[in-house]
């Protein structure tokens, strides 16, 4: 199965589709994907660095480096590498407006 993003799916294709929203855009992933896999299947980054010009796409995938934090539309952040994507999830690569 070809993806348009950074990652390539090599196996485990036979899973149900899951829809989620990234920065308001509807995206598709597979059940069992982490948020990181789900986003990088169609995109190339998770967020921008707060300290430099470069985008970031995660680093350790085991919850240790904290490179892959994203915003949820409701405010709280989540770690993309260790959070499973769920149907209807609404995520943002930037801080939501009116969030303190």
């Amino acid at each position, binding site marked *: 199965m070809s993806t348009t993003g*950074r*990652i*390539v*799916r*090599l*196996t*485990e294709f*036979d*899973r*149900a589709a899951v829809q989620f929203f990234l920065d308001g855009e509807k995206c598709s992933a597979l*059940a*069992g*994907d*982490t948020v990181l*896999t789900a986003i*990088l*299947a169609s995109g*190339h*980054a998770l967020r921008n*660095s*707060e*300290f*430099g*010009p*470069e*985008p*970031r*796409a*995660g*680093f*350790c*995938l*085991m*919850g*240790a*480096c*904290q*490179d892959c*934090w994203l915003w949820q539309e409701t405010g*709280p952040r989540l770690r993309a590498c*260790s959070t*499973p994507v769920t149907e209807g999830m609404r995520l943002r690569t930037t801080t939501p407006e009116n969030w303190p």
Partner: protein
Amino acid sequence: MSDATSPRVVIVGAGPAGIRAAATLVEAGLHPVVIDEGHRAGGQIYRRPPDGFVRPPEQLYESEAAKARTLHALVDQLVEAGRLTHCPGSSVVAAHEGRLHVLREGEVQVIGYDRLILATGASDRVAPVPGWQNAGVYTLGAAQIALKAQGVALGRHIVLIGSGPLLTLVGAQLLKAGADVAAVLDTSSWHRQMRGFSGLAARPIVALRGLVLRARLGGRYHAGVTLERIEADASGVIAMRWRDAGGRQRLTPCDMVGMGWHLRAETHLADVAGCAFDYDEQWRQWLPQTDTMGRAGNGVYLAGDGARLLGADGAEIAGRLAAVACLTDLGHAAPSVKADLRKLTRLERFALGLARAFPWPSDMVRTLPDDAIVCRCENITAGAVRESADFGGGEANRVKSVSRAGMGRCQGRYCQLAAVDLVAAQAGCATMDVGRFRGQAPVRPTPIGAFLRED
């Protein structure tokens, strides 16, 4: 559940060490609590994919499939029988005087313990390479987790850099799964690798398996390379710039780089639990002090790669030993450990061989250009770290305060070893004399709201 009089033993980590420790305690009639960040028990090396994935253990863990099956079955059976309490998806963020702060689903709970067994494992030991802050650079461990637990490759054209058993293993696993691996670049020379030979001979079958995997890499594998720069554009990695052993300039186009120089013990919890540390010259890192059984004092025991980097087989043994030490100290009967101690000696000899064959790239780190990023969390450069040593002297925690290296979200896990090496070079002292970054609770980012309870 245990009755009020039985001791409360808490194990942190459900990898091979944690599972073996738990099973040993259960056999002796105790009811341990196992707290683990994973959603399913197994740890990193024997990590299980989510529900709905279909590859069998033989495909996921290859030569280690039988061990993985045994451990998974063991822990599942103990959980099902109600003989231990398993807390998955939970992070222990602090440990102090018999109390753990455990973060789960945005809330912190306090769990008390009489004895604490830390089986926190290890992560990749990474060294900064100019450009490593860009999107598309991952650890070797990350590449393996992505393949095992998600069935994906983290890029279309992959270059792996570093040194150590994982470099060869991940390269071979990615190739086998159908990924495009353009190059596998080892900073250790063939000559250097031979220096580990006497140690590696302690486990001839494992060493031979490594050579077979290396052969699968074919002409992609290069030993004794010099890594110059990870080239990137605005969307991420585009190429790896390096020099081969003969000094020739090479440029390999790629959109993903996986890096790692063997392992770094995960010791933050041992630190906040009050363990003492020694600098280990072989492993070029600070490791918590324990006796052979894993006793660290004050009712704390350490097992697995978080204490000694012996790999999964060593972790199973160390888990049993720590549980036996704990049982003995509690006055319970415990099984004999003679055979385990004998095996451990052999594994230690092998691990030492690995440490010699695939060393930390100290020269590379010490000659990093001033504009290279050392701390990925806050983009702190080698120049800023060097300057902080000029300003504050060659002491790790002063460098941390002045430069902020080690104060970002990863809490120094991925910059500490390089930072102290840079400081040692700048201050003209031994790396050991620079000291280490003190760990601070919470050892994982924790929202303030998680500590606020209604009651």
